[in-house]
């Protein structure tokens, strides 16, 4: 196990390094002088231009810039946003809670329902319920995230005005009680979260179902049954925990997909999170923010994958024995 851990750490570390380098060069080979974007005021004296160049370190050669970039990175500095003129770290950190709220709630919801439905479908394998359930899951899995979001908004916020049109809340409103405030916040959270959960749940159902079916065929299940363990105990104590392992890894693997989904959902629902930030930074050509976000998200995914790998290895019954 220790050897495995070490190997995984090395792999993750190397991947991170490559990503860091790629991140840097990807944004430097872009067409267009970032200075022009930065300044936006074409009427600027050559001196002022030089000053800004220096300030953002765009004067040095590529390799020197890379070295400065690495050095800054290790001290936790991600540069300064072109658009906001604030440190990129601050800009990113401001948006993290919003995205975590959205993604976290959606993931929890989709896992709960995914596991539940997956178990039910596996239990009722081959019946009409199973086929219907499978079909719905597959259909949900095939839907573009933004499309589902638009339809939800159209139905629930425009046609039936049950939910707000977007955003995280309404500023300048006074609530008479804490409960009212909470209810309102949930109202804003509801539609984006449910939409996201719908997108994710399909895959969890499918994986849970097939994983459970596979597990039920395993030898140790037969052994347990032969020992006289009841059906319910069989399911709860033996099948489920093992069947859930792929789900665990799936969460980590899905992180990349979740980022993509977050961008779409936050754009449709005007949700002030990292996804929206990425899109805005893209259209504004705010390279430092883009770079920082990219790195942030990618490293998060790498770390998540790493944890999932370790967790999987630790929990896998085959390894245990």
């Amino acid at each position: 196990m220790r050897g495995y851990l070490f190997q995984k750490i090395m792999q993750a570390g190397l991947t991170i390094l490559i990503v860091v380098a790629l991140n840097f060069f990807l944004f430097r080979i872009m067409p267009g002088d970032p200075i022009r974007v930065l300044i936006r005021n074409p009427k600027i004296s050559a001196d002022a231009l030089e000053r800004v160049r220096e300030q953002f370190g765009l004067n040095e050669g590529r390799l020197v810039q890379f070295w400065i970039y690495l050095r800054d990175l290790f001290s936790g500095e991600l540069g300064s946003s072109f658009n906001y003129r604030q440190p990129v770290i601050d800009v990113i950190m401001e948006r993290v809670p919003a995205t975590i709220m959205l993604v976290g709630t959606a993931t929890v919801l989709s896992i709960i329902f995914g596991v539940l439905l997956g178990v039910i479908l596996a239990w009722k394998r081959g019946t009409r319920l199973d086929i219907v359930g499978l079909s719905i899951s597959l259909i949900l899995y095939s839907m573009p995230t933004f499309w589902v979001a638009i339809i939800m908004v159209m139905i629930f916020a425009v046609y039936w005005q049950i939910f707000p049109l977007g955003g995280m809340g309404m500023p300048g409103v006074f609530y008479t009680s804490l409960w009212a405030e909470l209810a309102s916040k949930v109202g804003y959270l509801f539609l984006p979260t449910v939409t996201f959960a719908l997108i994710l749940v399909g895959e969890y159902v499918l994986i849970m179902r097939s994983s459970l079916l596979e597990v039920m065929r395993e030898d140790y299940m037969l052994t347990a049954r032969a020992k006289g363990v009841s059906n319910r105990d069989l399911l709860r104590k033996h099948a489920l925990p093992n069947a859930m392992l792929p789900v665990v890894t799936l969460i980590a693997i899905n992180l990349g997909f979740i980022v993509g989904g977050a961008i779409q959902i936050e754009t449709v629902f005007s949700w002030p999170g990292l996804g929206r930030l990425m899109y805005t930074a893209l259209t504004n050509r705010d390279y430092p923010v883009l770079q920082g976000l990219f790195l942030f998200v990618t490293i998060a995914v790498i770390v998540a994958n790493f944890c999932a790998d370790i967790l999987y290895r630790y929990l896998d019954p085959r390894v245990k024995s």
Partner: protein
Amino acid sequence: MKRLKWLPLLLVVLMFCSIALTGCGGGTQESQYVFRSGYMREIESLNPMVIWSVQAYEVMYLTYNFLISWDEDLNVIPELAREWEVDESGKLWTFYLQEGVTWHDGEPFTAEDVKFTFEYIRDNELGYFYDYVAAMEEIEVIDEYTLTVKTDEPIAWMPQILVPILPAHIWSEIDPEDAEGEFANDNPIGTGPFKVVDHRKGEYTRLVVNEDYYKGRPGLDEVIFMIYANTDLMVEALKQGELDIISDVPGAQFKALQDVADPNILTLEADSPSFTELAFNVWDDPVSLGNPHLLDKNVRMAIEYAIDRQELIDVALMGYGEVASTLVPKLFEYWHLDPGPGFRSFDPVQAEVILEEAGYQRDDQGLRVGPDGEPMSYMLLIRSESPDNQKMASMIKDMLASVGIGIEISVIDEGTLTDRIFEGDFDLFIWGWYVDIDPTSILKVATTDEILSWSDCFYSNPEYDVLHQLQQRTMDREERRELIYEMQRIFYNDAAYIMLSYDPELQAYRTDRYTGWVRNPRTGPVMYTNVIDSYEQLRPIE
């Protein structure tokens, strides 16, 4: 298994409870008069030195005051400067400032603040404001409320110094490098009618009223700018009463709002000093990467004759706009030059005549070939940010094809377009300008000095340049106008731009909550204009 079953069910029930409560809306209450303005772009910063978006400027106008303002007829009226005069040389200005004005933090406003602001910006060449103070040689404080400014030359557009007056006691502590850099100015102190209290990037910016505003406390308690990620939902929010106003409504949604004719929503097609133009690369230099055909005035004029501008407006802009002619928009009646019978309106026959006579003959496929043997095939660059421009471009392509000119359209983003312009790597492009009240700012775009700076077509005409210098220093209004007329005439004759349309500002606002909307200029918009009268004068409908 059983235990698991209850959890999600409980969650679902909880969810529905919350929804029911939200749906009732019984728990929320607005105890103040809050005004909500919707917008699409983020307000990038509260620091005036680094902002560039229309919304950020609007927040700045609410936070800070200028020395002057304008009335509905675009006459200059007092603001922080209640009176001013200039001596015979035209170079020494004296400003008498308002008394009893206080900053948001309670400190008194004095002439020191004005002097500090001008010098701070001038000495550090800060932001967009530098142009207004560059010519100030010496600024002196005579007494607490009197200030003199000496310019190195007579300047016609003084005192329209569009510089926000900053508090010396705050900004003197700010290192000029930070002023243009990381200083966020999160707690802006100004003299304006509203003060920013909460700025959430990407979400909203909230301002509360300045109780001690020198013109009197406004009727609104709060102004909140709310960001939406897309226009459609923003319009819907207006319809549902979540917003009070949205500006820059896209043509399609504007039309839809007009058709719905909700009595509580007023759609305003306001005159605005912005226009859309088709620009040529007229850089007469071998370094230029533009097609040399375009250096021939005949080609440019022919293209102008071949374009049906009214059709462009009707289809691409849904009818919102006016056929444009000369450089200074029609909105500025005083300065705008009507080209009269010399106007090259839609006349494809004439276009063909000109081309034929200039030696551009059609080949077998119908495409014209120049006297140099090269086909008349040009690249038209279009901004990806503007679907309207894209629609226009495909229409222009068809129109020019019918007179034998081939156009290839390339859609790129603004940043790339700016780069290509500065490299001279283009034939034609479509873009637009938003013009200041004083015509100097738009006229200078065509001067030789501004090439690789504000100029974007490389136009260079020494006669024009001379006139530009002259008009800036001509203090007599009528004399100045003659010069500006002549400049417009020259520029129009040289046809470096084809002015396509004078674009209106499309706004929609609710009329059931507040009253007291002010349009400034008279036929202009109620907000996102050069003054903040509406914000100052709106009050709730009792």
